[in-house]
């Protein structure tokens, strides 16, 4: 079986070698990097621009961005035909290729987020290490925790007022440096598509900008969504624990804090959503107005074959409905939950419509290809590049976030 044949249906004239080569994992890749970049931008709004209303979610989104980071690489590894050689992109980059920038941008970004996290959590590391060190007879897990925290302090145990202030300054600088790098990380993912001159749908200089805007939208949406979910869990846990520790915040306190953060954050979400939709519509209108050679086939893909995906799910459910939800006064948690889920769906569909939609027509402009998502994995290929692979990529960041939260608690003020 030829790679791509398992999920491609061809109609009318396509070149014999044409198949849908970039599948669900390549949809997941910009979606995940978008979440990384968006979550980071959200945390930077507080650290750099001093948007204090976002304080509650800033630390949360920073840790979440770090949890998402390794997952941005996972879909690529699952997609490569020779994953064992994937490291060559970093070792022997061929700089005329947009993908070659991946190693540099990705590792720069990773280092910025990691060092910012270190400065944010240094006090916590030192305190935890000292607390564990004070225990005379440590159990095995306590010993391991002690080792981990001592290592994480990197030997810098000074947590005097001046030292912590210096930390804060460093965080601010790193967050400021991180914004352009985060935008670059995602903008270049857009460039990968936008620069393919062989593909009529992809080739537009707007692609990187559209990608950045929708990335921020999706990142903020996911942060709000995860924030709400974790707060709900915390409410349940708090109700149970409050019987033992009375100093913990009550359910009502948590609830009002949650609503306040969510309302503030959705304002930024709507702003970026407007920018993203404007650019996407501009691109669409421009293509229709200039009506180049490829417009005939693009029109039949956009307005006929992918109509439901583009106009009903992406623009309708994913953009218009959340827009109404967020702008109607008196936002509730439940509505915010629905709105952010729909925004995430919308951004996912935007990636889908770009990646899969861009391969829905032959480069002969005389035929169509249809992607059938492999649901049941009957081979390694359909497992990697099917529903199972995509779900794996979607689940991993939450597992990582759970683990990271053990080391770097995002809601530390409750203890």
């Amino acid at each position: 079986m030829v790679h791509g044949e398992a999920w491609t249906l061809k109609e009318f004239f396509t070149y014999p070698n044409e198949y849908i080569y970039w599948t669900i994992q390549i949809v997941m890749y910009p979606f995940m990097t978008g979440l990384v970049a968006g979550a980071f931008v959200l945390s930077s709004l507080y650290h750099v621009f001093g948007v204090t209303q976002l304080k509650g979610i800033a630390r949360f989104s920073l840790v979440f961005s770090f949890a998402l980071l390794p997952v941005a690489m996972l879909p690529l590894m699952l997609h490569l035909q020779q994953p064992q050689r994937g490291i060559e992109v970093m070792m022997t980059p061929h700089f005329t290729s947009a993908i070659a920038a991946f190693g540099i941008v990705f590792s720069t970004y990773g280092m910025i987020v990691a060092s910012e996290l270190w400065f944010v959590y240094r006090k916590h590391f030192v305190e935890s290490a000292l607390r564990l060190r004070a225990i005379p007879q440590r159990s095995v897990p306590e010993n391991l925790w002690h080792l981990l925290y001592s290592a994480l302090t990197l030997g810098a145990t000074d947590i005097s007022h001046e030292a912590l202030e210096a930390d804060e300054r460093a965080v601010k600088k790193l967050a400021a440096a991180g914004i352009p790098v985060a935008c670059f990380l995602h903008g270049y993912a857009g460039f990968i598509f936008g620069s393919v001159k062989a593909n009529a749908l992809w080739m537009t200089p707007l692609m990187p900008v559209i990608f950045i805007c929708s990335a921020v939208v999706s990142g903020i949406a996911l942060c709000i969504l995860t924030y709400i979910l974790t707060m709900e869990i915390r409410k349940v846990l708090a109700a149970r624990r409050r019987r033992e520790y009375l100093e913990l915040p009550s359910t009502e306190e948590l609830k009002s804090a949650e609503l306040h953060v969510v309302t503030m954050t959705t304002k930024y979400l709507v702003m970026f959503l407007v920018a993203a939709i404007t650019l996407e519509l501009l691109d669409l209108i421009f293509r229709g107005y200039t009506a180049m050679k490829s417009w005939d086939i693009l029109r039949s893909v956009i307005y006929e074959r992918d109509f439901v995906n583009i106009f009903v799910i992406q623009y309708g459910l994913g953009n218009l409905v959340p827009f109404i939800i967020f702008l109607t006064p008196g936002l509730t948690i439940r509505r915010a939950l629905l709105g952010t889920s729909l925004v995430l769906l919308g951004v996912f569909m935007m990636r889908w419509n770009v990646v899969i939609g861009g391969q829905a027509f032959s480069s002969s402009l005389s035929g169509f290809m249809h992607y059938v998502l492999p649901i049941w994995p009957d081979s390694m290929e359909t497992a990697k590049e099917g529903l199972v692979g995509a779900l794996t990529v979607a689940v991993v960041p939450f597992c990582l976030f759970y683990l990271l939260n053990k080391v770097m608690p995002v809601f530390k003020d409750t203890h």
Partner: protein
Amino acid sequence: MISRRNFCKKSLLVAGGLAILLSALELFDPRRLEAEKGDGKKVRWVFLVDTHKCVGCGFCVKACKIENEVPYDANVTRTWVERYVVTKDGKTHIDSPKGARDGFEDTRIDIGEGKFQEIKNEEISKAFFVPKLCNQCDNPPCVQVCPVGATYQTADGVVLVDRKWCIGCGYCVMGCPYGVRFFHPVYHVAEKCNFCYHRISQGMQTACVDACPFGARKVGNIRDPQDPVTKVITTDRVNVLKEEYGTTPQVFYLGLTKEVK
């Protein structure tokens, strides 16, 4: 009477002026120019397809698959033949079943998903075959986009793939406007036509050229003015595919019409 100062000035001017002329001679040394114009290379492989001669027998596709060990039954191929049937209502019907490996055994047009379209003979205004293969572009987008440099252009213009280095990302497959690239079903790396580089560099013809019973395919060296292919390209009205992409393709066609995709 010329003063000493003036004499020095004028003689410097004359010397300078002469120097410019002399350096100009050096700059425009015709022999050097001739050499530089051809960037000093003696070989640049090109291909010539005479669509008038192609009958769509598919011998070239068969020969290519066998020569280059592309699995015979796999639905990918380094070269293929397209059939164009233009009907009187102005519609163009195109197909290439299995890349025309077995020729065109059915008069109906293969429209995919196992469906065929019948076209009556009296409706046809013209019909012809167009063989396709890698254009070995002068400005190859596939080489540009390869993130690890596994695909590269040789000094004599042929684009090759290093099977030991390709990571299989598929960016080159996406970057090629001609759809000549695919993943090799056995090696799982990018695969493409390379003008049978192992043969042409040893003074042989490509497998498809050897297999063509009608001489519709020819490979040649554009740097050699005596090469019959060069003679046709330089004197006859030839065309290339999808010039608008700026790839500068090096497969030249005789009898190419606007219907060809």
